[in-house]
């Protein structure tokens, strides 16, 4: 094996994805080549420091995303293999430096382009990437065990495009199922931007209508009722009437439901 053949296999070596024969050849080359040995140990150090990053509590979604990422990584490998000889810019260290530089340029470009009328195509692509990163942050925070973290996820959701159905779905799940009253309360408020977007307003309205019968905490019931009144959501009228006539419901909530019914007239 030559140096040029060995270099692309370094990450494979550390990720233990080399075939048996390849592994032998690779080790043989390392034994004979000082430059490649030091390169491999550099890549290895990076791998190990990646290992030291704290582990997240995995949930079902995390697993799904991991496989999505793995798929993308494999695709990347496959397309890399079809390229002929490897050049300096394909070395991991250079790629990382380039990625960092690109990120800096991107942030700079985004900053400069802020407020301009029509952003160039690259900037809007960058914006998309930032948007999807925000989406990821919001989604993963909303799945955390700590209520404080989930609250943070809910406030991140204000930073995604209101047409983002995945974040909307996560918020709806939170409104319906989060065990913490305060988190549900914050999530109800966070649905508001979605009722203004043509892509999601129907789903968001329905979510509010469907959440009300399930909710038991008066403070969240009132937040939902206010929201329905604001939306003039007639579909909620039967549930509001039920609340008004249910003696087990808190009197403050019943009065609010009555008020909402009047507003919808």
């Amino acid at each position, binding site marked *: 094996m030559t140096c040029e053949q060995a270099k692309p296999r370094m990450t494979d070596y550390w990720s233990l994805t080399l075939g048996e024969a390849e592994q032998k050849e690779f080790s043989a080359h390392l034994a004979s080549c000082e430059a490649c040995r030091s390169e491999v140990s550099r890549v290895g150090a990076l791998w190990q420091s990646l290992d030291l990053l704290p582990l997240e509590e995995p949930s079902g979604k995390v697993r799904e995303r991991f496989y999505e990422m793995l798929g993308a990584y494999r695709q990347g490998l496959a397309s890399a293999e079809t390229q002929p000889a490897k050049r300096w810019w394909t070395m991991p260290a250079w790629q990382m430096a380039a990625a960092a530089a690109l990120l800096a340029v991107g942030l700079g470009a985004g900053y400069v382009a802020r407020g301009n009328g029509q952003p160039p195509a690259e900037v809007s692509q960058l914006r998309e990437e930032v948007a999807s990163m925000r989406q990821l942050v919001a989604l993963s925070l909303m799945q955390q065990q*700590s209520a*404080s*973290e989930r*609250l*943070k996820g809910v406030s991140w959701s204000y930073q995604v495009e209101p047409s983002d159905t995945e974040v909307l779905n996560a918020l709806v799940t939170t409104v319906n199922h989060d065990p913490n009253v305060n988190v549900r*309360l914050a999530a109800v408020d966070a649905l508001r931007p979605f009722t203004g977007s043509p892509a999601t307003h129907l789903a968001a309205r329905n979510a509010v209508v469907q959440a009300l019968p399930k909710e038991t905490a008066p403070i969240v019931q009132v937040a939902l009722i206010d929201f329905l009144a604001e939306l003039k959501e007639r579909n909620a009228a039967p549930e509001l009437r039920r609340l008004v006539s249910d003696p087990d419901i808190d009197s403050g909530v019943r009065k609010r439901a009555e008020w909402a019914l009047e507003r919808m007239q």
Partner: protein
Amino acid sequence: MIKRVGIGIGLAALAAVQLGAQEGRQQITMPFRDPSMPRKLIVEGGTGSLTIRGYQGQDALIEYTGREIPGANNRRGGRNDPPDGMHRIGGSRGLDITEENNTVRVNSQGIFGGTARDMVIQVPAQTSVNVKTMFGGIMTIENISGDIEAENFNGQVTINNASGSVVAHSMNGKILVSLDRVAADKSMSFSTFNGDVDVTLPADTKARFKMRTDFGDIFTDFDVKMEANAAPVVEEEKDRKGKSRRRVRVDGTQSGTINGGGPEMQFTTFNGRILIHKK
């Protein structure tokens, strides 16, 4: 890998049970398996008062008493009445304490036992605490530097000397919180339906407040930079006689920042005041 202590249901006890000096007062020690890992305490149920306190030790110490409560079964001549010349030292109160993955879970369903329970739980200060009671009285949490989640259906929630994060709710009681220190990136939320929300924060706290009270006022001695309210919404609507009229509505949530802004803190009450004190 579950340690389980069942009192009154006769499961094998791995923890030390000792009778306190006081009549009917008992203490259980439940160690956290790995002192170097994050600890968590989960408390569910309970009908009496509940106090959770951070202390210097390593274990969870659970101390409780059975308190007589009025009720058909407890009246003189009722099913749970002590026989002449005797007093209650224990019984089927359904207290269940488990430890799993450094999480100690205290599950107390006293409503079926006919006696209420006053409970004091001590844990190392650096423990995350998650408490939820439906029929409890006053809930007090002190000296905890982990994340606190507290929910009380009927009673007041008091949190003193907290230095992690707080997410607290009471349905029919006051929320009284005092934080010694505020972590730079923690979101917090304080809410009650019927009662005041009274929170004391260190003077240098950086935060963005979101405040809402339906029937009450908001007071603070912080220098809050209020954000403009959401733009008033003008609605065209028809009155009962079919004449069209106009209504201007302003969203009731108010926002503002202190010390330049930071993570979000939400204060919500329906019937009550919001008081935010500077420490």
